């Protein structure tokens, strides 16, 4: 298969190399070989655009860098101020929370409540909501079972706290109009009321 193909090809070559056509081809080659220098069309551009470009780039770079730097600096200033502001606000929040805790102090709340006449109940009792039943033995919370919230004042020395000067006056039963006798009676009554109270406290 390969040998006939070769023949065909070589035939063509031969045909191409036929002397009858040489002149045309050579002419073209010659024509091609006779290259002439194309006259330079030098358009001399001035250095200005390039210099302008370079200096523009340079300027833009410098300005950009400056602006970048300035903005960074500005950001740093802002950051510092804001950090300070955050610290101040944080401190403020903590101070407020401290004040809140002081206000929540159970002692303070209890003192205020007691001044308003409130008493911590002595006996717990519950009301069951489902059937309305009272659990426990409810008892009224009275002044007697209020808790002493402040320490007792220290005992004064005898010099500063002398025993009360008691004068016993024998009232005249025949003199109903005398104010003295009535006052004395009233005092005695007070004493009788106070007596069981102190016992109860014990």
């Amino acid at each position, binding site marked *: 298969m390969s040998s006939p193909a070769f023949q065909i090809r070589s035939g063509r070559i031969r045909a191409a190399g036929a002397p009858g056509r040489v002149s045309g081809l050579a002419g073209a080659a010659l024509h091609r070989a006779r290259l002439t220098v194309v006259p330079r069309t030098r358009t001399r551009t001035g250095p200005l655009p390039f210099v302008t470009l370079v200096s523009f780039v340079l300027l833009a770079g410098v300005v950009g860098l400056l602006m970048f730097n300035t903005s960074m600096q500005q950001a740093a200033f802002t950051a510092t101020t804001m950090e300070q502001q955050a610290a101040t606000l944080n401190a403020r929040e903590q*101070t407020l929370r401290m004040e809140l805790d002081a206000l929540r102090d*159970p002692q303070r709340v209890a003192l205020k409540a007691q001044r308003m006449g409130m008493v911590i109940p002595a006996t717990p009792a519950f009301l069951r909501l489902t059937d309305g039943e009272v659990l426990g033995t409810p*008892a009224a919370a009275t002044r007697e079972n209020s808790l002493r919230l402040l320490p007792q004042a220290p005992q004064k020395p005898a010099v500063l706290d002398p025993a009360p000067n008691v004068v016993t006056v024998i009232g005249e039963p025949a003199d109903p109009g005398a104010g003295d006798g009535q006052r004395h009676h009233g005092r005695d009554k007070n004493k009788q009321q106070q007596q069981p109270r102190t016992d109860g*406290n*014990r």
Partner: protein
Amino acid sequence: MRRMPSRPSARARGSLRGSPHLRLRFGFLVIAMVLSVFGARLVQLQGVDPHAYAAMAAAEGTDIVELPAERGDILDRNGKPLADSVDGAMVVANPELTREKAPELAKFLAGRLDVDYFETLKALRLKDKQFAYVARRVPASKAQAVVAAAEEAGFDGLDTRHDPVRDYPAGDVAANLIGFMGTDEALAGFERNFNGLLAGQDGSERYSVGVGNRIPLGQATIEPAVDGQDLNTTIDLDLQWYVQRVLRQTREDARADSAFAVVLDTKTGEVLALADDPTYDARDPRSAKAKGDLVSRAMTDVYEPGSVEKVLTLSALIDAGKATDKTRVVVPSSLVSGDRVIHDWFTHDTLYMTLAGVVAQSSNIGTVLASRNFETGQLREYLTKFGLGQKTNVGIAGETQGILPDPSIWTSMTQDRIAFGQSLSVNAMQMAAAVNTIANGGVRVSPSLIRGTAVTDEGLQVGTDTATTERVVSKRAAHQMTLMMERVVDPDVGVAPSAQIPGYRVAGKTGTAQRVGPACGCYNNTFTVSFAGFAPADAPRFTVYVVVQNPRNGGGGGSVGGPAFAKIMSYALSRYGVPPTGSAPSRLPTTWRPGQVASR
């Protein structure tokens, strides 16, 4: 002039300036001198101590800021702060600048900060100093505002510096547990015992600065601060406050030396309140009247528990199968024990009591007679299991471990006295936990003051996570003991009707023990009175133990400790919403008649 023709250069001799050689030499000399000075300086800089100079160069333009770690808070069981840290500042003055206007400035500061006028005046006028404290531990925002206001008013020389404030918002509430801080270090209580945990680690930051502002993209290294951890306690702030107020009233009314109380959650062993009186204001530790007021007496006081201990003896006896709540005891008027005679607190002829009656009337003789049924060493074994003689390790430094006599000195006489609470010493926490064992159906839960877990500076791990449980007596024994203890608060047969809470079933036991005086080491006729109990008796929620040292009003455990117990228990029950169980109270017989047949 004669030589002039022979030497052409001689013409220049008239003015030396013209001589290039000389000029050169002179020039070189000067240059050499300058260079050698440079060289010497170079050697000095590079050869002698290059690092110091390098460091100085680096320090110029760098700022080092300390980043203080925030100290952890101490919180109660609901997250309310018992101790917290606030960003604070100190106000400092430069006396050289403030001296001139000192009186005006002192007046200005005294009006705005909580400082004394005269102290401030003195500080502002300090001689030859450029630094003086004006106020310390001021909340930061307040300090800055005051300094800014002062500057606006034309006063110079004030500045602020970082100075954290430790605040105790509840004042004296739980102060004996929390402790307090000194100027720079923790001095007492949890603050000291858990200092490593609370303090954290300070950090630092260094960066380049220019005109007071940090340079962006400049060198900066940050070592972040590690904040301290919060310490979560099991304390209930409000209950603790109430207990402290009740104790103060009790102590004042009884004219006693001191009083302390423990409130335990029966099931978990968490300490809801551990109160001491007298106490102090943690915000002002110098307000304490005595040094002993600074510590927790409940943990550091050793004392003989007295009759409260009978609860342990008799429940152990029932558990050992040597008695029941209906065991009959014939109680003579006195009992010989070795070379001593044991009496009861009340004089009586021979009494016929059940074991419940022995408890209800707190009879020493009855308890001793019953306890003589123990085998050798048995009682000590039980008491050890109840936790006596060992530290409770709840996280309080300086806890006493109490005294439980060694078996080598444990004679039958000793045992007789120990049976009713003499010859052994405890701290309040041990005793509360021991009584709580009965409340908890015979299982002892180790008490804890810290929620979760925390490690003390000594390396001891404490907290609810490490709590242990151990069965000490059987459920049956604990139940019988509870029924007997209910009779104590019975108005007819018991000694402490004032400890009763209307509507509730309360189980308790009084204690009145003689105190050992420090002078002679003998009983000095003063007393420790106490009351321990729990409620509701058939489903206990809380165990409360109140101890009053040396009451001078002649009161005993029932009359002094009982009412305090009732108040504290009532408050706890209503605060935690525990309604009465509504079951019938214990009706155990307390006496028997000689001819009667035992009914079991």
